[in-house]
């Protein structure tokens, strides 16, 4: 694991993960880990670490899609950045927003104002409160704020009267747009979209994704967390691949082409080749359960190119060309 460096190193050629020429990235995670104490039925108390040593960066104006299978704990990343993990969670590693370390205080100030969430479903809205009141930024009930709500609603093709609706009265598409609106109205620079298109109609999915792309094009940073590689690829600039609690590769979207020759990590390549349009070739096996992780590289049991060295220790994320990869064999 690299040691942290002073962040304002503008002008240096970026060999360290996390720095760019223009200065500090909008969001950066270094060795992020999240663990919980678990009391499972019939078992004793134990510790589970769904996220181990996760690294990523996100720049303004770009969409970074974090792809991982369902249930792998990707949402925890969103909650960790916002600082709304449950109280029994322990967070290790470091998080930076615009170069500033994110502690609890900073998170409390930033969330809802500079960092916003687009949640998964309409269940994230209070069922007994009209939608308009929930879209308003907290603490702002004045005329100006209400007008802003109406204008943002209009931008997303919602009527002004729709602010009077209750969440259960929204159609799937309308709900999506309302949720995006809540993030936009905050004026945040960092938008985290956590599985924003679960099981929706393809038209609604495309619409939602295009809204997110729009936001990035306006200069915001969008962290798109999803399990759907196709969706991610459709609007992302870079793709982060999430496996067994950590990022195994971060590649530009252009690398996802052909047979995946430009993809470095075997898992990424397997993901790409598993897509229906690429031959639909699935990879055998499944993610390791959280209570029995393999030694060394977490992907090693399923990896077609693993060697005995892979069992020794977890590889670090290293820069390779225009991306980053966590594999000792990548070249």
């Amino acid at each position, binding site marked *: 694991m690299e040691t942290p460096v002073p962040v304002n190193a503008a002008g240096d050629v970026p060999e360290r993960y996390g720095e760019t020429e223009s200065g500090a990235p909008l969001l950066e995670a270094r060795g992020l880990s999240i663990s*919980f*104490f*678990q*009391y*499972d*039925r*019939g*078992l*004793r*108390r134990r510790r*589970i670490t*769904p*996220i181990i040593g996760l690294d990523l960066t996100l720049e303004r104006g770009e969409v970074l899609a974090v792809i991982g299978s*369902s*249930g*792998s*704990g990707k*949402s*925890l990343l969103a*909650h960790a950045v916002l600082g709304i*993990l*449950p*109280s*029994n*969670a322990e967070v290790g590693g470091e998080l930076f927003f615009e170069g500033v370390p994110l502690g609890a205080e900073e998170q409390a100030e930033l969330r809802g104002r500079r960092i916003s969430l687009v949640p998964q479903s309409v269940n994230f809205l209070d069922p007994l409160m009209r939608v308009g009141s929930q879209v308003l930024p907290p603490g702002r009930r004045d005329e100006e704020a209400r007008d802003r709500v109406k204008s943002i609603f209009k931008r997303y093709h919602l009527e002004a009267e729709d602010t009077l609706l209750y969440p259960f009265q929204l159609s799937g598409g309308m709900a999506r747009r309302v949720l995006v609106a809540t993030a936009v109205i905050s004026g945040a620079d960092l938008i985290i979209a956590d599985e924003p298109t679960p099981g929706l109609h393809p038209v609604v999915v495309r619409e939602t994704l295009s809204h997110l792309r729009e936001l990035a094009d306006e200069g915001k940073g969008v962290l798109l967390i999803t399990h759907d590689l196709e969706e991610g690829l459709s609007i992302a600039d870079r793709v982060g691949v999430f496996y067994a609690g950590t990022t195994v590769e971060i590649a530009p979207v252009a690398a996802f082409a052909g047979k995946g020759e430009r993809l470095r990590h075997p898992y990424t390549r397997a993901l790409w080749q598993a897509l229906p349009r690429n031959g639909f070739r699935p990879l055998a096996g499944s993610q390791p*359960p*959280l*209570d029995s992780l393999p030694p060394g590289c977490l992907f090693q049991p399923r990896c077609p190119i693993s060697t005995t060295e892979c069992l020794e220790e977890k590889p670090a994320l290293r820069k390779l060309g225009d991306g980053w990869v966590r594999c000792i064999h990548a070249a």
Partner: protein
Amino acid sequence: MNAEALLERPWAGRLLGGEANRRKRTLILVSLLAAFLAFIVVGGALLGQSGLSTNVELRNLAPSLRYPFGTDWLGRNMLTRTLKGLTLSMGIGLLASSISACIAVLMGLAAATMPRAVDAFISWLIDLFLSMPHLVMLILVAFILGGGAKGVIIAVAVTHWPSLARVVRAEVLQLRQADYVRFAKHAGRSRLWIATRHMLPHLAPQVIVGYILLFPHAILHEASITFLGFGLSPHKPAIGVILSESMRYLSTGRWWLAFFPGLSLLALVFAFYSLGSNLRLLADPWSAHE
């Protein structure tokens, strides 16, 4: 273990003490309860009839070391009377609850396994019983049966089965729909086999917990009915009788006649409630927030 599931129940990690502690605690509770019950029954028996005979010289003594619960206006040892009364209450409560539980299980099973018409009728019956005012019906039934132990037992038994029956019915209905049960049926297993191997293990905990939670209800209601005069005869040292008699002497300042017997009853009922709710949490941790 699914990471996303952790987000669904963020408080899960904080279950006070967790599973192992709950098991330990329940075990301790069970032993304490058993010891308590033994103390009541054995103690009452040991103290024998001597404490119950009238002894004019020992009248109206306040609590002391010799007579921890004091004595009453006839010189009877209140501790003896209380212990015997508790034993009586427990016995009646046990009997009434057992009958009630049997009715509940039978009705619940019948409703869930027999044709729709039977289910409709039983469900309607359950609703009917649950809409009737509880204590009033107890009084009515006890009144009809002329009071006494028989009256109380039947009254309590007949009014407490509906909620447990409803639980049994819901469980069995759900189990019948469960995939593994349907597979077993397709695979040709006999109904008895399915019933005992698949359904019983799921049903048993609920029924046992429900049964145990019936006791405190039954005991409290028996005491209430007896207190009002519809239950056990005044010749028996039932707690309800003791307390109703004590009302007469309250104004003369003999508070121990009411305080200790009632407190003991509270302790008994509380013990059963604690046991029942701990068992329920063991059987189904998600059923309540700690």
